[in-house]
């Protein structure tokens, strides 16, 4: 027994286990511009990608990106297809039952987009939805998104159509298969409203940010039972906030930062 232990020790010594050899595999959609997407030359870029790289640099790990469809993101993490989710995933109660999250690195809101110039009167002045005015409308959502949970809770009778990705949402909004979609306003602005195909469409709701549905924000997802890794991620994100890096990443894609400065305190 002793000799076996010695042998293993020797083998480990020979092979060597340098600390910097840690490789973290990061799951993301790779189609969710401007947070994680590929440029025409095939490079993976975006706010999530910048955050992942920034965190990896601070904790001294190598990165490997894995592209994964949204609805299989958490199962794939649990099945050990990758180690972290950096995919604009909001921290929610139901997700926390299955996985852990780092502290947030982006705020999380939702907004409806529809044809402009139609005063549909979907929300009252205090920002609550008016269910009667949703009847007869087809609303496109991404399957298993926080927007779907919000609709299930607030407007259970709404005619909701579920999609597997964000791109088909816009296609079917333009094609007239759905009357409105609920999505991330930052993404909707950059991907759709600011472009030619999005002319004739506008936000038709206020920003909806109820913490019980949308969570405190977007965090890095990891498998449960890794408190040490979580602590390293948390402190890395704090450092990114306090050094102004996170603002710098945001300004590449938006005219404003998309995180809460208070997250850097303490």
């Amino acid at each position, binding site marked *: 027994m002793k000799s076996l232990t010695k042998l293993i020790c020797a083998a480990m010594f020979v092979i060597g286990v340098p600390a910097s050899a840690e490789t973290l595999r990061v799951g993301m959609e790779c189609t969710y511009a401007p947070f994680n997407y590929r440029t025409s030359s095939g490079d993976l870029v975006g706010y999530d990608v910048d955050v992942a790289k920034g965190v990896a640099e601070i904790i001294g790990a190598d990165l490997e990106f894995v592209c994964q469809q949204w609805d*299989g993101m958490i199962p794939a993490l649990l099945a050990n297809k990758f180690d972290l989710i950096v995919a604009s995933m909001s921290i929610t109660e139901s997700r926390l039952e299955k996985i852990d999250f780092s502290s947030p690195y982006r705020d999380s809101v939702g907004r409806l987009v529809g044809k402009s110039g139609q005063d549909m009167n979907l929300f009252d002045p205090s920002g609550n939805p008016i269910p009667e005015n949703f009847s007869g409308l087809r609303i496109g959502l991404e399957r298993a998104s926080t927007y779907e949970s919000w609709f299930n809770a607030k407007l259970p009778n709404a005619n909701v159509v579920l999609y597997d990705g964000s791109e088909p949402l816009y296609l079917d909004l333009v094609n007239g298969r759905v009357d409105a979609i609920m999505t991330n306003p930052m993404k909707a602005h950059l991907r759709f409203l600011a472009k030619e195909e999005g002319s004739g469409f506008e936000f038709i709701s206020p920003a909806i940010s109820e913490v019980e549905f949308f969570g405190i924000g977007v965090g890095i997802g990891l498998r449960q039972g890794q408190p040490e890794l979580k602590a390293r991620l948390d402190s890395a994100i704090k450092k990114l906030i306090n050094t102004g890096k996170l603002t710098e990443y945001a300004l590449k894609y938006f005219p404003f930062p998309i995180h809460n400065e208070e997250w850097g305190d303490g």
Partner: protein
Amino acid sequence: MSFDLSLIVETVPKMLAGVGLTFQLLGLSAFLGLILAIVLLLMRISGKWYLDWPAQLYIYVFRGTPILVQIFIIYYGFPQLEFIRESVLWPIFRDPFGCAVVALSLNTGAYVSEILRGGVLGVDRGVLEAGEALGLSTTQRFIYLTTPIATRLALPAYGNDIISLLKSTALASTITLMDMTGIARTIVAQTYAPYEIFISLAIIYMILTFFLQKFISLIEAYLGRYTKRES
């Protein structure tokens, strides 16, 4: 890995709520596909090149491309064309159900027409010659001799195609339809429990296939009642 049995008990009834849509897709596509297949078959055996060649091309295209790609072209591709959005057909293509039925019918039609052709080619020449000797016209020979014998010959392979079509209906879930697979995928996305849900779903499809298979073999037995052999 833990296997959550109570989750299965809870979600199977939800998935079964989609069985109606699955069977609507199956029934409509099988019916429309069969009509298309018969038209294609008649074109193929017409002996006229200007009917035969387009039918051959059609069959080649639809058997040569994946059904999923055909569904995507019809659902996402067609609405990009202005004249389709303004045509009378737009209500069909606007609706994901219409798109799914069109795609499944066009696809299964190509396969079934070849199955039927196999049946027609399998009819014994002697029978047709006997019909001719009796003074039956070409049309009469086709209706009274070829059709019943060819149907009997083609039925096992046709049954196979219907079963395959049942499974193809699951692809409708990729274009937002809430058939059994669509419901299952939504539940998986909410519960993050793919094993339990998809295994239950697979078993539901297997049970449906079992009954479909029984139904087809009943028809086979009925049509083959005079030609039963020992083995």
